[in-house]
C-alpha cells in the first residue's frame, strides 16, 4: 500500500513550519508518523503537503522547570520510557511509556503526535487528563497554552488551529505523597487498548485524597476525564470501599461502543475493574510503596 502523492517540506524552524501550514489548507504535520503514514497508506488521509517537523532542533527534551515537567513535542516515546527522571518521579508517565504501541514504534512515535492526533485509543491523552497537564501550541501569533481539559474536541479533533503546532507538553511536578498508575488491557502488544485507565492521586497525612485525576482510554470519541469519580473521592479516605464506588462512577462516565474488541457492557466492566486497580496502585505509590 502506497500513499497518494503529496508535496513534502522539511523546515528547520518552527516559524517556517507554521508558515508552510498557513500556505496550504490541506497540509499536515509529520511528527513520528506512526499513525499518519499508515492512514495515508490506507488512503484514509491524503494531505497535499506534509510538513516534516523532525528536522527542527530543540523540540526534543524532558526537563523539570518552574514546577512543571516540560516535554518537547518531538520527544520520542522511547526517550520517555528510558528517562530516569520519569521513572523516578512520574510513575504514571513511566507506566504509559512502556505500553504505547510497541518498542519499535516508540522509537519514532512522539509525545506531541500522540496527543495532537486526538485519537481516543492513544494512551497519552487519558494520561495527560489524569495529570491535569497543559500543552503549548505555537502558531503565527506565537505561543498559547491550552489546558488539556479543553484540548480534545472530538474524534481526531483537537483545539489546535490549522496553522498551529503542538510544541510542548507540561505535566505538573509531583507533590509529596502523590502517585499514579496506567493500566491497559490490550489483546496484543501494539494494539490499541480495549480499555485503559490513567490514575493520578495525592494523599494527605491521614491518607485522604487531596486530589484525584482519572482518564479513560478508548471508551468514547475522545479520551474521557471521569470527573464525577474524581469529585467523589476528593477529601475522602483512600479506602477500598471508596475506590470501588468511584470506579462505578468512572464506568458510568465511559461511552464505549461495541466493536471487535468487545461489547459495550464488557468494556464498561473493564473500566470499573481497571479503575479499581489503577487507583489501588496509585495510592500504594503515593504512600511510598
Amino acid at each position: 500500500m502506497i500513499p497518494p502523492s503529496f508535496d513534502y517540506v522539511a523546515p528547520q524552524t518552527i516559524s517556517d513550519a507554521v508558515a508552510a501550514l498557513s500556505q496550504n489548507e490541506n497540509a499536515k504535520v509529520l511528527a513520528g508518523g506512526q499513525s499518519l503514514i499508515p492512514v495515508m497508506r490506507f488512503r484514509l488521509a491524503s494531505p497535499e503537503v506534509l510538513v516534516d517537523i523532525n528536522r527542527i532542533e530543540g523540540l526534543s527534551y524532558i526537563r523539570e522547570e518552574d514546577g512543571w515537567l516540560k516535554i518537547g513535542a518531538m520527544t520520542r516515546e522511547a526517550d520517555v520510557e528510558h528517562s530516569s527522571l520519569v521513572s523516578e518521579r512520574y510513575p504514571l508517565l513511566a507506566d504509559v511509556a512502556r505500553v504505547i504501541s510497541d518498542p519499535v514504534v516508540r522509537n519514532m512515535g512522539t509525545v506531541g503526535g500522540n496527543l495532537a492526533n486526538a485519537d481516543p485509543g492513544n494512551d497519552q491523552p487519558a494520561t495527560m487528563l489524569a495529570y491535569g497537564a497543559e500543552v503549548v501550541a505555537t502558531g503565527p501569533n506565537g505561543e498559547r497554552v491550552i489546558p488539556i481539559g479543553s484540548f480534545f474536541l472530538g474524534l481526531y479533533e483537537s483545539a489546535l488551529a490549522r496553522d498551529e503546532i503542538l510544541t510542548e507538553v507540561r505535566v505538573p511536578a509531583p507533590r509529596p505523597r502523590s502517585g499514579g498508575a496506567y493500566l491497559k488491557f490490550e489483546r496484543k502488544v501494539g494494539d490499541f487498548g480495549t480499555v485503559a485507565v490513567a490514575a493520578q492521586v495525592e494523599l494527605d497525612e491521614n491518607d485522604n485524597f487531596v486530589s484525584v485525576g482519572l482518564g479513560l482510554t478508548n471508551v468514547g470519541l475522545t479520551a474521557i476525564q471521569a470527573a464525577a469519580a474524581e469529585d467523589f473521592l476528593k477529601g475522602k479516605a483512600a479506602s477500598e470501599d471508596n475506590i470501588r464506588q468511584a470506579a462505578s462512577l468512572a464506568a458510568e462516565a465511559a461511552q464505549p461502543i461495541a466493536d471487535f474488541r468487545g461489547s459495550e457492557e464488557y468494556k464498561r466492566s473493564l473500566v470499573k475493574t481497571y479503575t479499581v486497580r489503577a487507583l489501588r496502585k496509585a495510592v500504594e505509590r503515593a504512600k511510598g510503596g
Partner: protein
Amino acid sequence: MSQHQIQVTINGKAYEADVEARLLLVHFLREKLNMTGTHIGCDTTSCGVCTVLFNGKPVKSCTLLAVQANGAEVRTVEGLAQNGKLHPVQEAFHEKHGLQCGYCTPGMLMTSVALLERNPHPTEDEIRHGLSGNLCRCTGYTNIVKAVQYAAEKMAES
C-alpha cells in the same frame, strides 16, 4: 508529486538518489537498491519484519518515508556480517535455532542487535519486552529469546 534528492548512508556506504516523497524507506531499500534482505510483512506497522536501524534505533521501514532518511545512517540485515563472518547475533540465531521459516528473522536480528547495544546483559523479561514489536508466527519465541541470551554471552566474552 514532489521529487527529492536524498543522501543516505546504508551499512557504511553512501547512496544518492532522487525519490518521490511518497516512497517508503522499505521500498527504497528493496526496489531502488535491490537490498531485499529487509522484508515486508503486514503493511500495517504491526509485524516488525521490515525493522532497520535508523540512526542506531530500530524502526519500521514501512512507516518511514525514504525522504525522511536524507542524511541518516541506516543499517540493514545485509550490514551485519563483516568480511564473511556472521554477526554474533546471527550466529546465535543459527546456533539456538531462533527461526523456522525465517521470514521475520531480518527484523528480529536488527531489533536484537540494537537491544544488545543498549543493554548488553538483558534479563529474559527485558528481551521479551524489547522484542515485543516483532512478530514471529513459527517459533513461539522461546528459541529467539535463547538466541539473544546466547548472543549476549558471546558478545561479553569477546
